[in-house]
């Protein structure tokens, strides 16, 4: 499987671990990813608030560059905000020829053109539908036995375009979590909004939304996310929220490919859990225990094997 890869700006900075772990997991399941050459910002949520046309042309430029490679038709996007911006171009230009024409008239000066041939796909969609829980089960090296994981989907990979999951009650991450040996934390906050950029512009509102999510995650060992904005909102303000709510709401928050990468025992330098902002000591301890117990099992089976060999001899 080959994919164009659009990391987006966050994955070069605050979400570096999402970038590295995505690439590591994709490689380990045999996918080939080609980073779009000289890619540029998709406009995030900012272009939309300034000009509709700009909000379409900025992502379209990246699709146009990807279209130059003939045999690869899917663009893999891990960031939900980038995903929606690129997806919007795919959907709108396919439905409305006059938008396609307008966008191309602007791209023309840079000798670029889109023809709505490309499929924009979210990382979660690709993991679930192109590889699936079976691939994880097959390559599982470290089962998350005794762990409870809360799947958090956020908004923009689910809505408004309904592509790979139920936009109200999403469940696509559940088989993946179970394939990794963990239990799914039962909650109904998986598709609730984290406030997006409210944390920067209207913090008092953002804090309330995130507090409700962390509150509902109580009892889980970790929240797993598929968007750098959700990840940052859920992990970065926990101290403030605990103080504000006057209770302990600290919670480990991991990116989905980091979680899968741990289960596949990929090298730590490719998962960079050290870059996450809210890994609790409890989570670290528990993780060490499953690793130790696996070492013990390995040692045990090695001695067993040795014994058997001795008997055979």
């Amino acid at each position, binding site marked *: 499987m080959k994919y164009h890869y659009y990391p987006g700006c966050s994955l070069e*900075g605050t979400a570096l671990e999402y970038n590295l772990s995505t690439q590591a997991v994709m490689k380990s399941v045999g996918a080939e990813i080609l980073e779009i050459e000289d890619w540029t910002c998709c406009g995030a949520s900012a272009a939309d608030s300034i000009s509709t046309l700009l909000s379409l042309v*900025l992502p379209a430029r990246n699709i146009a560059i990807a279209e130059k490679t003939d045999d690869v038709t899917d663009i893999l996007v891990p960031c939900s905000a980038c995903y929606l911006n690129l997806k919007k171009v795919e959907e709108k230009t396919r439905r409305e020829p006059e938008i396609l024409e307008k966008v191309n008239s*602007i791209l023309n000066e840079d000798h670029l053109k889109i023809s709505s041939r490309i499929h924009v796909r979210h990382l979660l969609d690709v993991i679930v539908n192109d590889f699936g829980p079976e691939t994880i089960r097959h390559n599982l090296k470290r089962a998350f036995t005794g762990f409870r994981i809360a799947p958090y989907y956020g*908004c923009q990979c689910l809505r*408004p375009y309904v592509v790979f999951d139920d936009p109200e009650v999403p469940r696509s991450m559940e088989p993946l979590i179970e394939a990794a040996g963990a239990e799914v934390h039962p909650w109904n906050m998986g598709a609730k909004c984290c406030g997006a950029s409210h944390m*920067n512009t209207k913090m008092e509102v953002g804090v309330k939304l995130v507090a409700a999510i962390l509150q509902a995650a109580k009892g889980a060992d970790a929240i797993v996310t598929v968007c750098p904005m959700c990840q940052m909102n859920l992990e970065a303000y926990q101290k403030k929220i605990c103080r504000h709510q006057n209770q302990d709401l600290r919670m480990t928050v991991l990116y989905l490919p980091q979680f899968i990468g741990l289960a596949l025992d990929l090298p730590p330098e490719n998962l960079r859990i050290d870059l996450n902002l809210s890994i609790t000591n409890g989570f670290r301890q528990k993780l060490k225990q499953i690793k130790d117990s696996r070492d013990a099992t390995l040692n045990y089976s090695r001695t067993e094997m040795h014994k058997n060999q001795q008997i055979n001899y």
Partner: protein
Amino acid sequence: MNPARNLKRSNETVQASVNLAPVQEMIRSCIQCGTCTGSCPNEFAMDHTPRQLWRMVLMGLKDEIFQSKTFALCSACYCCTLRCPRGLPLTEAMEALKQIAARENLKQYKHSVQFYKTFIQSVRRHGRVNEMEFMTLYFAALKNPLTPLRFAPLGIKLLSKGKVSMLPSIMRKRPLESIFRNVAALEERL
């Protein structure tokens, strides 16, 4: 009444030239059912509910719309768009109101406008956004020395982990210049 609704409003009036017609067109067939309000995660912080806002838009109550914080509180979760029984593009209509506020430089919307504008400036300059440069420009534009303090602990944490760099990633010079120029030219003509 919800005490959160008693928000301070500005007394700003909007230019008569502001054209609400495209937004009215988007929500013309609103039946005032309130599904949008019931779906909105930010409704608790709004002075007017989304349902009330759509009525105000149809009635052309410009001053009231732009004195209200409602559209600025939309976090683009698309729940209302997904659920609207009339299939109206409500999130896009919120964005259209944000675009008007940005163009008109409305005081009430200052924080968000500065946030978006500095973001786009950074993108125009480098092609990709540099988070450190962008937040620095944003704080400078707000001219409030206290705002950055709220983010200082996080900024230090991110710097120490090497997750934000002080230098923008090196790219071809202004790769988006022609796009920005052509979009502006085309919109000027509209």
